[in-house]
């Protein structure tokens, strides 16, 4: 595969790189203790001491955004990992073998897709119990499986009868080997953009779930929960919503560019 760069890819790599560095930084260092409250520091507007200002408890918003972006990033990453691994496995089996298994699994898939994803996540959360990060990941991961399954199934089905797969089959390669070694690498042009889009959706889904109060629990920071807090303080501390929302936008935009770039590259290569 030729390594061609395009504008989208380059911009996406730079922006995502910056955001990732920002998030990694947040794991080790924040300018202030993200949970430290202070009566004198309430509602300070952005300044050199508090880059993004402070919130209604006098907590430094920049520190909380650093920490919260990390939480959101980890949740989104694990969600996409669950969705991509399980989804691809289902897609591979159904796409390659077809038949009854295909019908059965894909109809279940359709049924899951029929639910609005947040609603489905709500159901899972209400079964697992709210208030734990793991449950948020599990709920969102499950919700993300169908879209990956659908995308990869198409790719696997399309490659099932191409010549190099046929010849591998004739040489007696096992189905597992064919799926993993011969077909999977060739689905990457489809899979990678799907992963980037999925990642963005997961960031937004975490944000909406925490916004609805079923995601991450306070005083832990997550971008979604912070945004829901910021909403009620929109007139008192507009910088709160702007700072938090801005970081979500940058995070999603960066990965979005990356996805678009990957898609364009695969089209160019093809």
């Amino acid at each position: 595969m030729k390594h061609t760069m395009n504008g989208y890819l380059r911009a996406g790599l730079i922006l995502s790189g910056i955001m990732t560095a920002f998030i990694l930084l947040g794991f080790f260092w924040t300018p202030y203790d993200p949970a430290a409250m202070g009566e004198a520091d309430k509602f300070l507007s952005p300044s050199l001491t508090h880059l993004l200002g402070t919130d209604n408890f006098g907590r430094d918003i920049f520190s909380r955004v650093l920490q919260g972006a990390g939480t959101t990033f980890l949740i989104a990453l694990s969600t996409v990992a669950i969705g991509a691994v399980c989804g691809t496995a289902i897609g591979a089996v159904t796409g390659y073998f077809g038949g009854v298994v295909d019908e059965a699994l894909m109809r279940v898939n359709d049924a899951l897709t029929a639910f609005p994803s947040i609603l489905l996540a709500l159901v899972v959360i209400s079964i697992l119990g709210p208030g734990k990060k793991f449950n948020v990941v599990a709920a969102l991961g499950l919700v993300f499986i169908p879209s990956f399954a659908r995308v990869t199934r198409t790719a696997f089905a399309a490659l099932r009868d191409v010549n190099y797969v046929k010849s591998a089959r004739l040489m007696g390669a096992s189905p597992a080997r064919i799926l993993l070694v011969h077909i999977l690498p060739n689905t990457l042009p489809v899979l990678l953009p799907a992963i980037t889009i999925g990642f963005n959706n997961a960031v937004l889904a975490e944000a909406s779930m925490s916004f609805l109060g079923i995601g991450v629990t306070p005083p832990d920071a997550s971008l979604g929960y912070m945004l829901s807090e910021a909403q009620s303080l929109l007139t008192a501390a507009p910088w709160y919503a702007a700072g938090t929302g801005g970081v979500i936008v940058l995070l999603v935009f960066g990965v979005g560019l990356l996805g678009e770039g990957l898609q364009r590259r695969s089209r160019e290569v093809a």
Partner: protein
Amino acid sequence: MKKRLMSLLLLAGLLCAVLTGCGDGSAEETPEDRAAANAITVGIAQDLDDSLDPHKTVKAGTREVMFNVFEGLMKPTPDGDLTPAIAENYTVSEDHKTYTFTLREGVKFHNGDTVTAEDVVYSINRCAAATETGIVQVEAFSVIEAVEAVDERTVTITISEPSNEFISYLTTAVLPADYTEQDTAPVGTGPFRFVSRTAQDSIVLERFEDYWGTPAQLDKVTLKIIENADSLMMSLQSGAIDLCSHLTSTQVDQLGDDFTVAEGTMNLVQALYLNNAVAPFDDVRVRQALSYAVDKQGIIDLAFDGYGSPIGSSMYPAFGKYFDEDLTDYYEYNPEKAKELLAQAGYPDGFEMTITVPSNYKPHMDTAEVLVQQLAAVGVTATILPVEWESWVSDTYTGRQFQSTVVGVDAANMTARALLERFTSTYGSNFINYNSANYDALFQQALATYDDAEQTALYKAMERDLTENAANVYIQDLADLVAVRQGLEGVVFYPIYVLDLSGIHYTA
């Protein structure tokens, strides 16, 4: 293409919603117009959509407004007492079982009819038996044996056992007998008469000219329904409304010089309620340690901008005679002492706990966030578990499946019993599983006592018992902030959830 069209339409729809939202501000009527007409517009957060019939009303928000339209034989006063309203006076028989009420002469209903003893009998019977659908039965009326109209102006009520709390239930609204349109066109005897209600929009009240007592000072009050908190703020700032209660300190801070802020109390006992039956809170030393570790004033300053009244037991200041001020500072903020007590109880390194919070109540969530910080200082790691209100009621309150919870407990009526009976060991809603033999005994004594001073002393002893055993970590009675446009005054607060409009007036 289709998608783009859809999103354009959506955007247009959103814009419309936003713009009409702002449109509330551009009402033609200005505060000056209203001052000239001796009228005001009050912002309320919810429609009165249950029933305007006071015997069927279930929503606190409806009762709050209709308090101005209805009265009972007695009515509550701002300091937590009762005063005769439709009754001129009453006498109680020697055995405390027969109440004889003499009605005030010439009290008129809003429809012009004179209130008779028959109307009183009708109204009390209506709430005692709940024969009509939708009537909210008054539990305390179950002791009534007979209600009789002796003559036009005399009513006797006989009850089966003496109770010095019975009288406080006679605030139940008196309605004209056999008037069938209370639901939509309510008729009472209060200082304001109901004029109209436009669903989802507004309610109009006008002064009742034939009121028996001090007449209302305003000619007309329009209650504008504005459900969205941000629109409510905009309406205040733009001059569309003159008065609004139940605001937060953050909202009040944004108001500026056009408004004065009246500070009352919400009449709730906000506390970190502890499940006394579950480790580690089954140990009194741990509960006391938490009480020392929590800085009430700190919470009030940090999360409520200093608005709020610290409390030290299950009683709030508005209750006047039952409130014991000395208990407020029983546990003075002292993290060192807290650590000491924790060490004695076998937790030198603290422990982990969960705080269940009904997440729709922002003040409780905010309080919990500060609590987590304060508890961390003595080594206790607390995690907040936000739950919906329904699951709070079913799992935490009814099911008692919790470690600790931040919530506000209120009194259903103006009696100390309403706040204190709930912690007797056998009471059905003793959700903290409080179990003190001394407390139970004191309550039995209080019930059997008819003398008011003695009973008050017993109730105070119960409060002290709760405090000494640190049944809960008591925090505060939340502030109820009312924004009033400059030039208006006369807001008074009651120990119950009502908005009395009759005293509000323009100063000039």
